[in-house]
Every structure is written in structure tokens, then in C-alpha cells.
């Protein structure tokens, strides 16, 4: 049956544009999907390596007095018989100006089951190598994907001794694939020399659970109170995956449109082949084979481009994850084998889903019906009915999921939320064609007195079978764009307001822990300072929640944060819910009660008035919740107390100092400069220790913008794919359209007018699609802010609808349509009239 297959494929030789569109659809769909999967795979790999490193699985000891740890602490604890191990951590600048984390360890005391001992190092199998690690010339262990940061090729790295910015050289490099990216692991003696730290230590660690309680004078932080990066970033990756899935679906719309057209144009060929004795089943099998061949080419190209796209986007994603979650992600792609196979599977699977309808219809057509395009299109009416029914079923499913979600506690049902959005979009996409068909038919009746308008509407109805898929793709892309755009816009507005409310001091300073109190005292005595807002932070575990109904025992790690209520902070600090009013809440905070963030309230179902039992150095502390406050961007639950109370009851370390300047008539910047100079002279804090409020806000805003850069990029790409789908549909039927327009030209309608009609037809139908996308987009925004966001991040956003965003959506719909219709219209306008008629005669 090779002859029949080659005959079928020969169609594309005569219509290379159609083949290009088909491959383009597959390529774009595959590229976006696998690009995001590549980013996710690389990030997961980085998390897994970071998680496997000793820094996350071990308990930590810090000095209770806030002073830095020193070698003497290690010696003293070891003499007490405690199995602690020293760590020295810092940042080195390479000769290329790249910043890398360096961790100095003592391999002999480091707990034996840590990742470094078991996976990161070959020491377990070769004991000699362990000796090489901590004896001259020492070793620098690093992951292979870190070598480019040192300006070295992977092959050239082992044994190399690259120079640092300060002229020092690293010990010979040894590759350890299990280490996280951008991290160098050296012996602690080497780290002390490279970082010029003398005898200070960053941390003392012990095996998890090794110590029952903290030794006197030290604070113990359990490994299980730290959240691993993979857990924190899961929702970020889920959002990315959802966007990529959307792009894949829109891409597959192009594929289905191109496939449908390629088959429709080959109906005659199919009939001829059947007449020449090729069995129907064989033809369907051959079409499936054709699909597989094209799919393989398109998918492989898509996956390869996806890897390229991912490597281009990864640095931005890595920066976002670092700033949002503190999760280090390598900027070099590390793709496991299943990435390639998975990408191929999803793209080919999607292709067969898109193509199965076409194959099914081709298989069902009788041999005598094959040659008649009418037989093919008669199926469209049935298809419209089917779509309306399927759309109703999808809407019912969305309603069922919504009912289920409404019965769940807040913060539950992330996947169900996505299912609800997907079914809503599917329902609207399926309803679109029947609604457009009904609308056009109604308008056609109204336009009876205007023959040309009536013709244009009737003609549009004839085009609908071919345009409907592209319009569905456009609807999905537009509504997703509007939904996500409104969500991001609303989030931005809320976030900026929230920053304004929280960052109330003019200047911020983070003095070293040891100097904090003396700096505070010195600042308080100065005339130019109106108010000081010291903060403190710590860690604890929420052990119990007591309410009127009884008590619930928990084990939830929480952050503790201390603020200083005062004239500047109290009026602006946002509160979502209070026990007895805003004023009473602040009085309660000053009296020792607590506020909790929305994440903790929603996650654990805690309301104002309930009492929390928190682990403290002295055993347990009980606080009453006076209010709940919004805390955007924080992945963890947080308990807020007055700074003084927090430091006293939880031995929390001091954090930053907010400085409110007195109004002396001198410009703020000059006062800040003078203060900075005075601070540096008195405490040697460095000229840049004092940070302007605007600087902090700008940094936060930048982090915010970067977080949504990827979402916006994917969204725009999805819209571009939808525009491509529309262009594909129009270009594919351009020639046939010209034939249909020829008689009108012969009847005296100018080509310019015909081209104008074409533009108006498509612009109009796209505007209708855009109008349909508006309520769907708003519904998507509601789902995103009320369900997805709460489940993914733990906070709820107020719903914002932006008329400008809606206007932009409608303008985009028309713009995309005019852009897509422009080329065929221009071709028509340029075609000599005689050619139009010759094309008509040739049919």
C-alpha cells in the first residue's frame, strides 16, 4: 500500500503551505508544552539536589545571644559529647564576576547519611578520596552544570584550579552530579581561607533528631520546620504547566484545522482511490500512518525547540524562584530521558485526539459520498448539534465541580479548580460554533433588504465549518488572556497597595544582630528621627489551636514576626478580619496578643478570638488571635506580635529598623544621606546599609513583575498561536474564497469592496468571539483569585475587573482577525479580474 500512501502524501507536494501549517501547529504546540516541561524538569532536578544536600536534612544550632558562631562553640559542644558538625557558608565572586555559593564542611564530623557523604561524593566507595578532600591540595566539589559559571567546559573542569575575582585560586575541581547548581563544596579550612572568615562559623548542624533539646545558650532549629523548595514551588510549576497545556490545546486546534482541510481537499482523491480498489479501512489506516509520520516530525521539532525555549527562559525563571522562594535553580537545562519521551507522547497523543475526529468522519463516509463536499459539510449541522450537547455536558461538569469546591474548606482543591476552568472553557468553546451559526442565520434574516449584506452573512455561514475551530482557539486564547491579565492586574494593584501600607517608614536599616540594640539606642536619641519601628523574626511550631469548641493539636512550622505599632504603622497596616474592630486589635497586639497571616488562618482554619499554643525556648507560649492580615508573597504561615513581646517571649533575633524621619524642612534624600554618613562613622555599617523605602518598594515590584513575566510571555504566545490558527484557516481556503467572489465581481461589485467585505466578515465574527470571551474571561479571573490562588498560595485576592483590559481583548480579537484576513484580502485585491473568472471556470 506504499503507492496509496505516497499518493495521499503527494497532496502536500502540491500544497506545501498546508503541510507547513500542520507542522507549524504541531511544532508550536510541542515547543511551548515541552519548553515548560523542560523548565519544570530542570527545576525539580535542582530541588532534588538541594534537598539531598546536608543543609536541608539536618537540625541547626545558633547562638541564643545572636553573636556569630565560632570555632570555640564547636569545640565546646564537642567536648560536651554532642555530635555537631561545623558549616561555613558564603559567596565567592569568580574571575568572570559570577557569584557562587561556597560551603565549607568537615567531612569527618558531618552526619554520615547526609547526601554529600552518600551521593554527592564518591567517598563511600573510595575512602582515599575522602582524605584527598580535606588534605592539600584539597578539592572543590561542584555539579557539572556549575562549571560554565567558572568559565570552564565540563570536560576541561576536573582538575582545573580556576582563579577568583580576588586573585585566589580554587582547589582542583571534582565533579559531583548530585550537588545543587551554583554551589561549591570545599573543606571548611579552605572555605575559611577563601572567605577570609578566620575562626567564625555559619552554622553548627547535627543529624535530624540527634539532640532532644538545645544545649544551654543555643537555639535549635529542627530540619522539619523548614519547608523544602520543591514543596514551596509546586504551585508555581503547576501554574506554568496549566499555561503550557493551554498553549498545547490551542496549537492542536491549528493541527485539527489543517488536518480537516487537508482531508476535505482530498475527498476527491479518497473517492478515486476507493474507486481504484483501495479498501476504506486501508485508507483510514494510511491516513493514521500519515498523521503519525507528520506528528513525529512536528513533535520532534517541537521538543527540540522547547528545550531551546526553556534554556532561554530558565535564567528568568531561576531568578524568580530564587527571589520568591529562595530556591536555587540551575540555569543550565538538565533533561531526564523521560522528558523527551513524555514530550513525544503528549504531542502525539494530542495529535491523535485532534485527528481522531477527522479519521472517524472519513471512515464513516460512504464511497459515493466521499467525492461530495456537501456530504462532508452536511455533517457540520450534526456536528453543531453534537457540540451543543457536549458543551452542555461540560458546563454541567463545571457546575458540579464548583458545587463540590464550595463545600470544601478554603484552600482546598487546586486540581479541581483547574478542572473547573478547563471544563468552563471547553463548554464555551463547544457552544461557540452553534451560537455563531444561530446568530448569523438570524442576522441573515434581518439583512434581507440589503442583498450584499445578506450574501456576506450567508457566505460567512458557509465558511463557518472551516472557521469554527480557529474561532474556538481564539475564544480560548482571548478568555485565558483576559482572565490571567485581570488576575495579574488585580494582584499588582493589591500588591502595590499592600506594599504602601506595610512599608511605612522612610528608611530601613538591618544592623548586625550584635549591634542592633546599640544602633537602636543611638538612633532613638537623634532629633531628626520621629519614630523607630524595630522588627524581629524567629521560628516556632504551632502546637495547638483552642477555640470555643475545644482544642486541636497540630505540628505546623510557622514564622514569627515582630512589628512596632505606632503613629506611622498602625493606621496603614492592612487587616482583613478582627475580633473586635481595628482599634481594639492594635490595643490587643500591644497587650501581647497576636495577629496571624491569611495563609495560616485559611490553611489551619483559625479565626480571630482563638488561642494558639506555640513552642518557645521556655517551653510553650499561649497567644490569642486578635486579627488576620494579608501577607502576599509569603509561602508560610506567620504569627505577628509586638517586637518587644516577641523578643522577650520567644528570644527572637532582631530584624530590621524602620526609621521615620521628623519633618525638619530639609529634603528627605539629604537627611537620609546625612544619617547614613553618621551611622557609618559611628558603627561602620557601610554607606549602603541604610535603604530608602522607595528602593525596597522598587525591588519588591521588580520581583513581582519578574514572577509574572513568564505567565505573560506564555499568554502572549498562546494568543499568537491562536492568531496563527486563524491565519492558517483563512489562507487555506483563500483560493476557494476567490472563486466564490468571482461571480460577485462579474455582477459589478468592485474588488476593493469585496476585499472590504472579507475583512468585515472576519472582523465581525471575531468581535462576536471576543464578546463571548469577556464573560468567560471574568469567570476565569474569579476562579483564579477565589480558588486557584487560595489553594496554591494560601491567600485570596480581591476581584478586579479592568474595562481597559476588556477593551484590549476586543481590540485584540479584531486586530488578530484583520491581521489574519489582511493577506488573503490583499491577494484578492491584487488578483486581476480575469483571473478570478478563470478560477471560477476551472471549478
Amino acid at each position, binding site marked *: 500500500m506504499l503507492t496509496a500512501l505516497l*499518493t495521499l502524501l*503527494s*497532496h502536500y507536494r502540491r500544497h506545501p503551505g498546508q503541510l507547513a501549517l500542520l507542522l507549524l501547529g504541531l511544532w508550536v504546540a510541542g515547543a511551548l508544552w515541552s519548553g515548560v516541561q523542560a523548565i519544570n524538569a530542570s527545576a525539580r532536578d535542582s530541588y532534588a539536589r538541594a534537598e539531598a544536600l546536608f543543609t536541608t536534612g539536618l537540625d541547626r544550632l545558633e547562638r541564643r545571644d545572636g553573636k556569630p558562631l565560632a570555632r570555640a562553640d564547636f569545640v565546646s559542644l564537642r567536648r560536651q559529647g554532642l555530635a555537631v558538625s561545623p558549616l561555613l557558608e558564603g559567596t565567592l565572586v569568580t574571575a568572570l564576576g559570577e557569584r557562587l555559593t561556597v560551603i565549607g564542611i568537615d567531612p569527618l564530623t558531618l552526619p554520615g547519611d547526609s547526601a554529600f557523604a552518600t551521593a554527592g561524593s564518591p567517598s563511600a566507595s573510595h575512602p582515599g578520596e575522602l582524605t584527598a578532600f580535606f588534605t592539600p591540595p584539597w578539592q572543590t566539589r561542584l555539579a557539572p552544570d556549575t562549571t560554565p559559571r567558572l568559565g570552564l567546559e565540563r570536560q576541561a573542569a576536573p582538575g582545573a584550579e580556576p582563579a577568583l575575582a580576588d586573585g585566589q585560586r580554587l582547589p582542583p575541581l571534582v565533579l559531583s552530579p548530585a550537588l545543587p547548581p551554583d554551589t561549591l563544596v570545599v573543606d571548611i579550612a579552605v572555605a575559611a581561607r577563601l572567605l577570609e572568615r578566620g575562626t567564625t562559623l555559619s552554622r553548627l548542624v547535627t543529624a535530624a533528631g540527634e539532640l532532644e533539646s538545645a544545649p544551654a545558650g543555643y537555639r535549635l532549629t529542627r530540619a522539619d520546620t523548614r519547608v523544602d523548595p520543591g514543596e514551596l514551588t509546586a504551585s508555581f510549576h503547576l501554574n506554568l504547566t496549566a499555561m503550557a497545556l493551554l498553549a498545547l490545546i490551542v496549537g492542536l486546534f491549528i493541527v485539527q484545522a489543517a488536518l480537516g482541510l487537508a482531508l476535505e481537499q482530498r475527498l476527491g*482523491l479518497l473517492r478515486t482511490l476507493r*474507486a*481504484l*480498489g483501495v*479498501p*476504506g*479501512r486501508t485508507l483510514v489506516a494510511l491516513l493514521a500512518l500519515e498523521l503519525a509520520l507528520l506528528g513525529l516530525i512536528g513533535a520532534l521539532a517541537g521538543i527540540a525547540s522547547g528545550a531551546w525555549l526553556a534554556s532561554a527562559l530558565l535564567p528568568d525563571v531561576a531568578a524568580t524562584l530564587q527571589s520568591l522562594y529562595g530556591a536555587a535553580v540551575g540555569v543550565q537545562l538538565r533533561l531526564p530521558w523521560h522528558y523527551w519521551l513524555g514530550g513525544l507522547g503528549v504531542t502525539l497523543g494530542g495529535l491523535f485526539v485532534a485527528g481522531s475526529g477527522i479519521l472517524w468522519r472519513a471512515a464513516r463516509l460512504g464511497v459515493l459520498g466521499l467525492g461530495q463536499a456537501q456530504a462532508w459539510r452536511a455533517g457540520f449541522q450534526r456536528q453543531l448539534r453534537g457540540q451543543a450537547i457536549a458543551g452542555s455536558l461540560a458546563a454541567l461538569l463545571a457546575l458540579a465541580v464548583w458545587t463540590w469546591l464550595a463545600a470544601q474548606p478554603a484552600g482546598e482543591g487546586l486540581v479541581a479548580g483547574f478542572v473547573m476552568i478547563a471544563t468552563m472553557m471547553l463548554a464555551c468553546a463547544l457552544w461557540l460554533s452553534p451560537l455563531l451559526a444561530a446568530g448569523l442565520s438570524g442576522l441573515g434574516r434581518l439583512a434581507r433588504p440589503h442583498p450584499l449584506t445578506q450574501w456576506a452573512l450567508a457566505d460567512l455561514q458557509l465558511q463557518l465549518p472551516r472557521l469554527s475551530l480557529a474561532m474556538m482557539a481564539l475564544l480560548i486564547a482571548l478568555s485565558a488572556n483576559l482572565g490571567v491579565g485581570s488576575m495579574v492586574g488585580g494582584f499588582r494593584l493589591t500588591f502595590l497597595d499592600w506594599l504602601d501600607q506595610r512599608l511605612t517608614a522612610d528608611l530601613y536599616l538591618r544592623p548586625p544582630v550584635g549591634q542592633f540594640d546599640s544602633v537602636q539606642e543611638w538612633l532613638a536619641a537623634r532629633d531628626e528621627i520621629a519614630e523607630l519601628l524595630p522588627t524581629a523574626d524567629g521560628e516556632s511550631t504551632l502546637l495547638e489551636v483552642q477555640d470555643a469548641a475545644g482544642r486541636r493539636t497540630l505540628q505546623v512550622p510557622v514564622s514569627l514576626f515582630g512589628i512596632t505599632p505606632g503613629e506611622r504603622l498602625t493606621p496603614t497596616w492592612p487587616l482583613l478580619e478582627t475580633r473586635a474592630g481595628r482599634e481594639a486589635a492594635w490595643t490587643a497586639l500591644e497587650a501581647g496578643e497576636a495577629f496571624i497571616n491569611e495563609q495560616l488562618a485559611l490553611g489551619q482554619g483559625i479565626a480571630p478570638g482563638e488561642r494558639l499554643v506555640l513552642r518557645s525556648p521556655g517551653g510553650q507560649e499561649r497567644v490569642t488571635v486578635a486579627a488576620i492580615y494579608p501577607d502576599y508573597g509569603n509561602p508560610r504561615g506567620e504569627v505577628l506580635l509586638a517586637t518587644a513581646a516577641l523578643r522577650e517571649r520567644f528570644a527572637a533575633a532582631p530584624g530590621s529598623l524602620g526609621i521615620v524621619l521628623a519633618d525638619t524642612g530639609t529634603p528627605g534624600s539629604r537627611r537620609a544621606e546625612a544619617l547614613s554618613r553618621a551611622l557609618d562613622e559611628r558603627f561602620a555599617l557601610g554607606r549602603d546599609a541604610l535603604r530608602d523605602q522607595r528602593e525596597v518598594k522598587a525591588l519588591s515590584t521588580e520581583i513581582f513583575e519578574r514572577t509574572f513575566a513568564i505567565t505573560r510571555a506564555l499568554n502572549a504566545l498562546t494568543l499568537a498561536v491562536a492568531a496563527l490558527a486563524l491565519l492558517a484557516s483563512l489562507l487555506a481556503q483563500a483560493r476557494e474564497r476567490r472563486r466564490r467572489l468571482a461571480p460577485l465581481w462579474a455582477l459589478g461589485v468592485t474588488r476593493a469592496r469585496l476585499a472590504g467585505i472579507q475583512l468585515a466578515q472576519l472582523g465581525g465574527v471575531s468581535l462576536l468571539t471576543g464578546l463571548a470571551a469577556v464573560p468567560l474571561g471574568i469567570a476565569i479571573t474569579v476562579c483564579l483569585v477565589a480558588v486557584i490562588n487560595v489553594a496554591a498560595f494560601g491567600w485570596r485576592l480581591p476581584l478586579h475587573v479592568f474595562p481597559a483590559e476588556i477593551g484590549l481583548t476586543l481590540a485584540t480579537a479584531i486586530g488578530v482577525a484583520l491581521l489574519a484576513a489582511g493577506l488573503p484580502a490583499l491577494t484578492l485585491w491584487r488578483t486581476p479580474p480575469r483571473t478570478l473568472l478563470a478560477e471560477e471556470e476551472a471549478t
Partner: protein
Amino acid sequence: MLEFRQVTKAYATPQGPLEVLAGVDLTLAAGESLALMGESGSGKSTLLHLAAGLDLPDRGQVRVAGLAISSLGEAGRARLRRETLGLVFQQFHLVPSLSVRDNLRLQARLAGREDSAWTAELLERLGLTGLTKRYPEQLSGGQQQRLAIGRALAPRPALLLADEPTGNLDEGSADEVLELLLALVRDTGCALLMVTHSPRVAAPLDRCLHLTHGHLGQFRATRTPTP
């Protein structure tokens, strides 16, 4: 070669079933040529479709080369068309994406019976030798129909079914194509069933049959079958 026994065929219409063929009996011997005439809608094309196994009778039996069409499955009927029949259509139905040469060889290759000497002879006799690299749309109507005839005869079928083969051609081209068709049919020894409107086209054939509202009317022998 072809036998219809009390064949009835009706189509569903909004006004109720429309009987197109009503108890048709017909026999066509090997090497014999038969013209089937009738008004539009008289059932000529339906009869041809039944003979080609493109459709099945409601009642009665259609046998081609001794095989009952109704007893064959879809694959069997496809095989019959591929190996035993040749079809020529009024609209040519050439494959636009294949060159003249590839179109001509298509059915022979599908049947696994390509004979390059015969292909070359056909190209020459059909006057297409210099046009082998062209595509159907680059040919005149007469050339396209000659190509369609060549495609049908390339596997040397036992029965050629032609549906208005000259219906789309001007008079000069029609005569030329018909002459060529009959000469090739004679030389290959295949039987021919041709649907036509034109008595002039029907005249050179062995027999002519009139179909009126689904009933076969009188027929006349025009000449003795050529073995």
C-alpha cells in the same frame, strides 16, 4: 462478465423511498461492449455504481466475473475494483498531485501489475508521451480524459465501466477520445459498459440499452461482439 438479476435499488427522499432501479436484468459477455442510455435521473449512474461495487442492491443480484457483489465484503469489493475493473468518469477524477506518468501507473501499481512496456505503449497511443512530467491541471480536457482512460486500462482490466467519458469534451475531442477508447478496449479484449446520453457515442458499441425510470427498455444489437 457482468450479470444483473432482478436488481432493485431505491433511495430515501423526504417524500419517501424513490425506486431508481426496478427489477433490472442485464448480461454482458467478456469482450462485449454495451451502451447504457437514458434520461437524467433514469438510474444509469446507479446501475454503473452497482456494477463497480460502489453501492449494493436492495434486492436481486449483481455478479462481476462470476462473483456476487453482495456476498463480498468491503475489502473484497475493493479488491475486485482494483484487479478486475477499470473505471472512467465524466469528471476524469485524476489525482491533481501526481504527474501524468504517475497518474497513468496508479491503478496498475495498486493492483501490483505494472507493466512498463504496456505503460509506454499506452502513453504513446494516448498521445501523452511528451507530457509525462506535467500535472493534470496543465492538460486540456481531452488529454485529461485520455489519461483517465489510460489509468483504467493500465492494469488490463476484464471489465471497463465508463460514465459519460466524453460528456465533458467538445465534439472533436469527444470523437477522438471515443475512437481511442474503443480501439484500446478491442485490443485489450475487455468488456465495456458505457453510460452515455449521446446516440452518436453509443452507435459504435455492440449493444445499446435504454433505461427509463428504473426499467430497462428495448435494446438493439449494433454489431457482432468482437472476441
